[in-house]
């Protein structure tokens, strides 16, 4: 009985996380926050370019604004890189982009970094 209760607690935790995650996912689909938060997180490896996919505004954005956004994204990517990756190891070389994409996918699973962090880090590491 005690064992069953413990198991139920473990799965209760799992259910809670999954429910919370699904709620977050639904909420993020209507999120209209700035560029790096605007797009719903992708389940895949992540995007090297983080701005929203369907952003017409981004497409027509003047070049200086786009450059400023790109620089801000790079800074944010570097910050996330140091904060997340630095928890366990020293920063590595930059590898070829497709190699980097594999490493980031691996670290997403292994180090459980968030989707947003992963996309920004990949963007930074492939620039």
């Amino acid at each position, binding site marked *: 009985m005690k064992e069953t209760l413990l*198991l139920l607690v*473990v799965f209760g935790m799992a259910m809670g996380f999954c429910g919370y995650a699904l709620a977050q996912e639904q909420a993020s689909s209507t999120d209209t926050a700035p560029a790096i938060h605007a797009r719903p997180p992708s389940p895949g490896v992540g995007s090297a*370019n983080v701005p929203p996919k369907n952003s017409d505004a981004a497409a027509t954005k003047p070049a200086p604004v786009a450059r400023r956004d790109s620089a801000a994204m790079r800074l944010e990517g570097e910050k996330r890189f140091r*904060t997340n990756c630095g928890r366990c190891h020293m920063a590595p070389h930059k590898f070829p982009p497709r190699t980097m994409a594999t490493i980031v996918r691996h670290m997403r699973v292994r180090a459980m*970094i968030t989707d*947003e962090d992963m996309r920004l880090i*990949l963007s930074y590491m492939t620039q």
Partner: protein
Amino acid sequence: MYLDKNSTTGVADLRPGHAGNPLTARHLLGQGACHRPGIARLLLGAGFLWFSLPLAARCQSASPQPPSTQLDDPQPLKPIPILQGSAGFLATFDGGEPHLGPIVTPVVLVPIGERWLVETRATFESDLAQQPGLEGFHGQLKKEVDYAQLDFIANPYVTVTVGRILTPFGIFNERLYPVWIRNLQSDPLILPIGIGPSNASTGAMLRGGFKAAPQFNVNYAVYYSALSTASPVDSSRFAGGRVGIFVPKARLEVGGSFQHLLQDERSNLFGFHLIWQPQALPFDLRAETARSRRGRGYWIEPAYRLSQLPFWRNQMRRTQVVARMQEFLVGPLPGDGLPDVNTRQFEAGMNYYFMDGLKATGNYGRQFSMDGNKNVWTFGVTYRFVVPLGREGNEL
């Protein structure tokens, strides 16, 4: 090119010391585990199916356009198979007895499509020692597959993992174990608590990380391991989970682990971990504590990069000093891979990073135990490598 010449963290890496630990008859026979009603197994199996399949289906249907790695680029950035890993050569003087330890741990990563990843790690190592009546060092090559798992990234918050998995109890086994990452060359005394003699499980796991609030992220892992007596994929039957809260602004992560053994004494195991890297200092603090009926203990490991020293800047920024204090207290049950008596150990050492992934390491440790005190010296070199598999590895 170094990306973090002033990084506050260090790369280190150590030998998988618990590879190849023998199984006990209890584990092999799985006393009691095989004869208990399958209610727990059914619950767990149904639970995983319940969570993972709908999530996967929902995720697939929720994104009719397959996500790409570069959503705004006409040509998406497709990950490729790679071979990475670490190699090292460590010389240890354990109580005056010299040991030579070459080690290679290749990791193969094969991404499939947008959501899948096959990953496996093997360890090839040897413990060469002098034997009576023989000249030179002698030993056998140990070969082991540490893990082989299939990951399915169901959505941004959940990854489903099945296969032979590293048991996510505490932080050392999953994150700090590779020789190029760890700061000190020895395993913590409490490492076998929660991960067993083989450090891996055979089963399934849900895991992920997400931003729970603007101030912090949450990462979690919930897993179930089935009883397996087939070497080398032996494992005990247990279920558990780990939760961590990471505050990026403070660079602080705290978390806890829980595990319930579903065989033998059916006990509970608890763990707590902490990682802190203050913004203002090139300082790194890691600590763990674990408790089970087989023993309890802790380790705390501060490390400091000397980049702030005003002289020999080029050399100092490559130099890291590190220490570890740890203690293990035996429990009422014998522990596989754990010390037989109460043990306390202090270690201090230094790492020098020649370049990315290449490091020289040396440390001194003093062990105090009922079996007698001894000194342990370790010197070595570790290296991390990444090799794309196939010609497309150099494509942009």
